[in-house]
Protein backbone atom coordinates (compact mmCIF):
# COMPACT_ATOMS: atom_id res chain seq x y z
CA UNK A 1 0.00 0.00 0.00
CA UNK A 2 2.73 2.38 1.05
CA UNK A 3 4.91 1.49 -1.93
CA UNK A 4 2.04 2.07 -4.28
CA UNK A 5 1.33 5.53 -2.93
CA UNK A 6 5.01 6.46 -3.34
CA UNK A 7 5.00 5.16 -6.90
CA UNK A 8 1.93 7.18 -7.72
CA UNK A 9 3.19 10.30 -6.03
CA UNK A 10 2.82 13.45 -8.13
CA UNK A 11 6.18 14.48 -6.67
CA UNK A 12 8.15 11.94 -8.68
CA UNK A 13 10.75 9.33 -7.73
CA UNK A 14 13.21 11.69 -5.99
CA UNK A 15 10.74 12.56 -3.25
CA UNK A 16 11.55 9.77 -0.81
CA UNK A 17 11.30 9.94 2.98
CA UNK A 18 14.68 10.41 4.63
CA UNK A 19 17.60 12.78 4.54
CA UNK A 20 18.71 14.61 1.38
CA UNK A 21 21.53 17.05 0.75
CA UNK A 22 24.23 18.12 3.15
CA UNK A 23 24.57 16.11 6.36
CA UNK A 24 23.46 18.77 8.82
CA UNK A 25 23.34 22.54 8.73
CA UNK A 26 21.39 23.43 11.83
CA UNK A 27 21.88 22.00 15.28
CA UNK A 28 18.91 20.92 17.34
CA UNK A 29 18.22 22.07 20.89
CA UNK A 30 19.52 18.76 22.22
CA UNK A 31 22.88 19.40 20.53
CA UNK A 32 22.18 16.74 17.92
CA UNK A 33 22.40 17.47 14.23
CA UNK A 34 19.11 18.36 12.56
CA UNK A 35 18.18 19.05 8.96
CA UNK A 36 17.72 22.76 8.27
CA UNK A 37 14.50 22.06 6.35
CA UNK A 38 11.79 19.50 6.97
CA UNK A 39 9.31 18.83 4.18
CA UNK A 40 6.07 16.90 4.15
CA UNK A 41 3.52 15.86 1.56
CA UNK A 42 0.46 13.87 2.56
CA UNK A 43 -1.19 12.14 -0.37
CA UNK A 44 -4.94 11.91 -0.65
CA UNK A 45 -5.70 15.36 0.73
CA UNK A 46 -9.20 16.63 -0.05
CA UNK A 47 -9.01 20.09 -1.63
CA UNK A 48 -12.02 22.15 -2.68
CA UNK A 49 -11.69 25.65 -4.12
CA UNK A 50 -14.57 28.04 -3.53
CA UNK A 51 -15.18 31.43 -5.15
CA UNK A 52 -17.96 33.85 -4.30
CA UNK A 53 -20.22 35.16 -7.03
CA UNK A 54 -19.84 38.92 -7.62
CA UNK A 55 -20.83 40.87 -4.52
CA UNK A 56 -21.43 37.72 -2.45
CA UNK A 57 -18.06 37.46 -0.69
CA UNK A 58 -19.29 38.53 2.72
CA UNK A 59 -22.41 36.35 2.55
CA UNK A 60 -20.36 33.34 1.43
CA UNK A 61 -17.95 33.73 4.34
CA UNK A 62 -20.92 33.86 6.72
CA UNK A 63 -22.32 30.68 5.15
CA UNK A 64 -18.94 28.95 5.42
CA UNK A 65 -18.71 29.98 9.07
CA UNK A 66 -22.15 28.54 9.74
CA UNK A 67 -21.87 25.37 7.67
CA UNK A 68 -18.19 24.41 8.02
CA UNK A 69 -17.24 26.24 11.24
CA UNK A 70 -14.47 28.16 9.46
CA UNK A 71 -14.10 31.78 10.50
CA UNK A 72 -12.54 33.62 7.56
CA UNK A 73 -12.86 37.03 9.21
CA UNK A 74 -13.37 40.03 6.96
CA UNK A 75 -11.99 38.27 3.89
CA UNK A 76 -8.49 39.64 4.27
CA UNK A 77 -5.76 37.20 3.10
CA UNK A 78 -4.24 37.60 6.58
CA UNK A 79 -7.33 35.92 8.08
CA UNK A 80 -6.61 32.57 6.41
CA UNK A 81 -6.71 29.31 8.36
CA UNK A 82 -4.56 26.17 8.08
CA UNK A 83 -7.44 24.44 6.30
CA UNK A 84 -8.88 27.48 4.46
CA UNK A 85 -6.35 29.64 2.66
CA UNK A 86 -7.21 32.69 0.59
CA UNK A 87 -6.11 32.19 -3.04
CA UNK A 88 -7.58 35.39 -4.47
CA UNK A 89 -10.33 37.93 -3.81
CA UNK A 90 -13.28 36.08 -2.22
CA UNK A 91 -11.65 32.79 -3.20
CA UNK A 92 -10.37 30.03 -0.90
CA UNK A 93 -8.74 26.62 -0.96
CA UNK A 94 -10.41 24.43 1.67
CA UNK A 95 -8.70 21.23 2.75
CA UNK A 96 -10.18 18.22 4.51
CA UNK A 97 -13.79 18.77 3.42
CA UNK A 98 -15.57 16.77 0.79
CA UNK A 99 -17.20 18.54 -2.12
CA UNK A 100 -20.78 17.74 -1.11
CA UNK A 101 -20.33 19.27 2.35
CA UNK A 102 -18.76 22.41 0.88
CA UNK A 103 -21.47 22.77 -1.77
CA UNK A 104 -24.14 22.40 0.90
CA UNK A 105 -22.51 25.16 2.96
CA UNK A 106 -21.85 27.59 0.11
CA UNK A 107 -25.23 27.13 -1.57
CA UNK A 108 -25.87 29.57 -4.40
CA UNK A 109 -23.54 32.25 -3.02
CA UNK A 110 -20.51 30.89 -4.80
CA UNK A 111 -18.96 28.06 -6.76
CA UNK A 112 -17.17 25.02 -5.35
CA UNK A 113 -14.84 22.85 -7.40
CA UNK A 114 -13.04 19.69 -6.30
CA UNK A 115 -9.29 20.26 -6.68
CA UNK A 116 -8.13 17.14 -4.81
CA UNK A 117 -6.39 15.83 -7.90
CA UNK A 118 -5.51 19.32 -9.12
CA UNK A 119 -3.54 20.75 -6.21
CA UNK A 120 -0.68 19.32 -4.19
CA UNK A 121 0.18 20.69 -0.76
CA UNK A 122 3.81 20.72 0.34
CA UNK A 123 4.64 21.77 3.89
CA UNK A 124 8.08 23.07 4.83
CA UNK A 125 9.43 23.93 8.25
CA UNK A 126 12.78 24.36 9.95
CA UNK A 127 15.47 26.82 10.97
CA UNK A 128 16.68 27.38 7.38
CA UNK A 129 13.28 28.04 5.80
CA UNK A 130 14.01 31.80 5.48
CA UNK A 131 17.17 30.93 3.54
CA UNK A 132 15.21 28.71 1.18
CA UNK A 133 12.50 31.35 0.73
CA UNK A 134 15.11 34.01 -0.06
CA UNK A 135 16.02 32.23 -3.27
CA UNK A 136 12.67 30.74 -4.19
CA UNK A 137 10.05 33.48 -3.84
CA UNK A 138 10.10 37.15 -4.97
CA UNK A 139 8.15 38.22 -1.86
CA UNK A 140 9.70 38.50 1.60
CA UNK A 141 7.40 35.97 3.25
CA UNK A 142 9.24 36.30 6.57
CA UNK A 143 7.57 39.71 6.94
CA UNK A 144 4.11 38.15 6.72
CA UNK A 145 2.04 37.64 9.84
CA UNK A 146 1.31 34.03 10.74
CA UNK A 147 -2.01 33.11 9.11
CA UNK A 148 -1.36 35.08 5.91
CA UNK A 149 -1.78 33.51 2.49
CA UNK A 150 -1.37 34.79 -1.05
CA UNK A 151 -0.60 33.52 -4.48
CA UNK A 152 2.85 34.11 -5.93
CA UNK A 153 5.51 31.69 -7.05
CA UNK A 154 7.98 29.13 -5.80
CA UNK A 155 11.05 28.89 -8.04
CA UNK A 156 9.03 30.30 -10.96
CA UNK A 157 6.15 27.87 -10.43
CA UNK A 158 2.84 29.52 -9.56
CA UNK A 159 1.62 28.58 -6.10
CA UNK A 160 -0.43 29.75 -3.14
CA UNK A 161 1.62 30.36 0.01
CA UNK A 162 0.32 30.08 3.55
CA UNK A 163 2.31 30.98 6.65
CA UNK A 164 1.43 28.29 9.19
CA UNK A 165 3.86 29.28 11.95
CA UNK A 166 7.04 31.28 12.51
CA UNK A 167 9.11 28.99 10.25
CA UNK A 168 6.37 26.82 8.73
CA UNK A 169 4.81 27.40 5.31
CA UNK A 170 2.38 25.45 3.14
CA UNK A 171 2.59 25.63 -0.65
CA UNK A 172 -0.33 24.71 -2.90
CA UNK A 173 0.94 23.82 -6.34
CA UNK A 174 -0.77 22.59 -9.50
CA UNK A 175 -0.34 18.82 -9.66
CA UNK A 176 1.38 18.76 -13.03
CA UNK A 177 4.00 21.21 -11.70
CA UNK A 178 4.47 19.37 -8.43
CA UNK A 179 7.21 17.02 -9.60
CA UNK A 180 9.28 19.89 -10.89
CA UNK A 181 8.64 21.86 -7.67
CA UNK A 182 9.62 18.86 -5.54
CA UNK A 183 12.87 18.33 -7.42
CA UNK A 184 13.71 22.03 -7.20
CA UNK A 185 12.92 22.01 -3.50
CA UNK A 186 15.27 19.09 -2.83
CA UNK A 187 18.05 20.74 -4.87
CA UNK A 188 17.56 24.20 -3.35
CA UNK A 189 17.38 22.89 0.21
CA UNK A 190 20.39 20.58 -0.22
CA UNK A 191 22.80 23.17 1.21
CA UNK A 192 20.77 23.19 4.44
CA UNK A 193 20.02 19.49 4.55
CA UNK A 194 16.42 18.47 3.98
CA UNK A 195 14.51 15.79 5.83
CA UNK A 196 11.53 14.51 3.87
CA UNK A 197 9.08 13.27 6.46
CA UNK A 198 7.06 10.15 5.95
CA UNK A 199 3.33 10.90 5.45
CA UNK A 200 2.64 8.84 8.58
CA UNK A 201 4.71 11.19 10.79
Amino acid sequence: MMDQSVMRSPLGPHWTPGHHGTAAAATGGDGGAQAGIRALHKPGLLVVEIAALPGKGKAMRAAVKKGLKLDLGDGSPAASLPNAVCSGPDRYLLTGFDLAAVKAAVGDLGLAVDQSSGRVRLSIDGANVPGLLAKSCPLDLTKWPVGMSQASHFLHIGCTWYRRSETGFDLYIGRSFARSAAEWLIESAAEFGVEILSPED
Partner: protein
Amino acid sequence: MLIPCPHCGLRPSEEFVPKGLAEAPRPALGGRAKPDGPAWQNYLHLRDNVADHNHEYFHHALGCRSWIVVHRHTLTHEVTGATMAADFWKADKPATTGTQDAKSPAAETAEDGQ
Protein backbone atom coordinates in the same frame (compact mmCIF):
# COMPACT_ATOMS: atom_id res chain seq x y z
CA MET B 1 8.65 47.65 -12.56
CA LEU B 2 6.22 47.03 -9.71
CA ILE B 3 2.46 46.84 -10.10
CA PRO B 4 0.15 47.42 -7.12
CA CYS B 5 -2.44 44.63 -7.38
CA PRO B 6 -5.52 45.69 -5.39
CA HIS B 7 -5.66 42.23 -3.78
CA CYS B 8 -1.99 41.24 -3.46
CA GLY B 9 -0.15 44.54 -3.02
CA LEU B 10 3.06 45.48 -4.80
CA ARG B 11 4.26 42.72 -7.10
CA PRO B 12 6.93 42.47 -9.80
CA SER B 13 5.58 43.01 -13.31
CA GLU B 14 6.73 39.50 -14.35
CA GLU B 15 3.72 38.14 -12.46
CA PHE B 16 1.35 39.97 -14.84
CA VAL B 17 0.24 39.51 -18.43
CA PRO B 18 -0.67 42.77 -20.21
CA LYS B 19 -3.79 42.76 -22.35
CA GLY B 20 -4.09 46.24 -23.81
CA LEU B 21 -5.91 49.49 -23.29
CA ALA B 22 -8.94 49.60 -21.05
CA GLU B 23 -11.07 51.61 -23.43
CA ALA B 24 -14.76 52.17 -23.78
CA PRO B 25 -16.73 48.89 -23.74
CA ARG B 26 -17.50 47.10 -26.99
CA PRO B 27 -20.17 48.80 -29.09
CA ALA B 28 -23.52 47.04 -29.38
CA LEU B 29 -23.77 44.46 -32.16
CA GLY B 30 -25.66 45.50 -35.27
CA GLY B 31 -28.51 43.67 -37.03
CA ARG B 32 -28.28 39.86 -37.12
CA ALA B 33 -25.52 40.06 -34.49
CA LYS B 34 -22.97 41.42 -36.97
CA PRO B 35 -20.49 44.16 -36.11
CA ASP B 36 -21.99 47.21 -37.65
CA GLY B 37 -20.86 50.63 -38.82
CA PRO B 38 -18.06 53.02 -37.86
CA ALA B 39 -18.42 52.38 -34.14
CA TRP B 40 -16.90 48.94 -34.66
CA GLN B 41 -14.27 50.19 -37.09
CA ASN B 42 -13.17 52.68 -34.47
CA TYR B 43 -13.31 50.17 -31.65
CA LEU B 44 -11.16 47.66 -33.49
CA HIS B 45 -8.61 49.84 -35.25
CA LEU B 46 -8.29 53.32 -33.78
CA ARG B 47 -5.97 53.93 -30.84
CA ASP B 48 -5.20 57.29 -29.29
CA ASN B 49 -1.58 56.30 -28.52
CA VAL B 50 -1.32 58.96 -25.87
CA ALA B 51 1.96 60.25 -24.45
CA ASP B 52 0.32 60.63 -21.07
CA HIS B 53 -1.40 58.67 -18.30
CA ASN B 54 -3.42 55.75 -19.62
CA HIS B 55 -5.34 52.73 -18.35
CA GLU B 56 -4.44 49.18 -19.32
CA TYR B 57 -5.76 45.73 -18.53
CA PHE B 58 -3.38 43.34 -16.81
CA HIS B 59 -4.04 39.77 -15.68
CA HIS B 60 -2.35 38.80 -12.41
CA ALA B 61 -1.54 35.40 -13.88
CA LEU B 62 1.13 34.33 -11.35
CA GLY B 63 -0.83 35.69 -8.43
CA CYS B 64 -4.48 36.06 -7.51
CA ARG B 65 -5.56 35.61 -11.16
CA SER B 66 -7.63 38.80 -11.09
CA TRP B 67 -8.07 41.12 -14.04
CA ILE B 68 -7.00 44.60 -13.02
CA VAL B 69 -6.68 48.00 -14.70
CA VAL B 70 -3.28 49.61 -14.21
CA HIS B 71 -2.83 53.37 -14.46
CA ARG B 72 0.52 54.03 -16.15
CA HIS B 73 2.29 56.95 -17.79
CA THR B 74 3.35 55.85 -21.25
CA LEU B 75 6.51 58.00 -21.34
CA THR B 76 7.91 57.46 -17.86
CA HIS B 77 6.32 54.06 -17.06
CA GLU B 78 5.33 55.56 -13.74
CA VAL B 79 2.51 53.46 -12.31
CA THR B 80 0.15 55.60 -10.27
CA GLY B 81 -2.30 52.92 -9.17
CA ALA B 82 -4.53 50.01 -10.12
CA THR B 83 -8.21 49.09 -9.88
CA MET B 84 -10.04 45.77 -10.07
CA ALA B 85 -11.26 45.53 -13.67
CA ALA B 86 -14.72 44.57 -12.42
CA ASP B 87 -14.88 47.92 -10.61
CA PHE B 88 -13.24 50.07 -13.28
CA TRP B 89 -16.39 50.83 -15.28
CA LYS B 90 -18.60 51.36 -12.28
CA ALA B 91 -19.76 54.93 -11.74
CA ASP B 92 -18.59 54.89 -8.11
CA LYS B 93 -15.06 53.63 -8.66
CA PRO B 94 -13.23 52.57 -5.50
CA ALA B 95 -9.97 54.26 -4.65
CA THR B 96 -7.07 52.88 -6.62
CA THR B 97 -4.25 51.19 -4.73
CA GLY B 98 -1.26 53.45 -4.31
CA THR B 99 2.40 53.02 -5.08
CA GLN B 100 3.95 55.11 -2.28
CA ASP B 101 6.97 52.86 -1.85
CA ALA B 102 6.96 51.56 -5.40
CA LYS B 103 9.62 53.66 -7.03
CA SER B 104 13.13 52.80 -5.93
CA PRO B 105 13.05 48.96 -5.55
CA ALA B 106 11.96 48.42 -9.15
CA ALA B 107 15.41 47.87 -10.64
CA GLU B 108 16.40 45.64 -7.73
CA THR B 109 13.33 43.45 -8.21
CA ALA B 110 14.04 43.05 -11.92
CA GLU B 111 17.54 41.82 -11.05
CA ASP B 112 16.15 39.37 -8.51
CA GLY B 113 14.00 37.77 -11.19
CA GLN B 114 16.75 35.30 -12.13
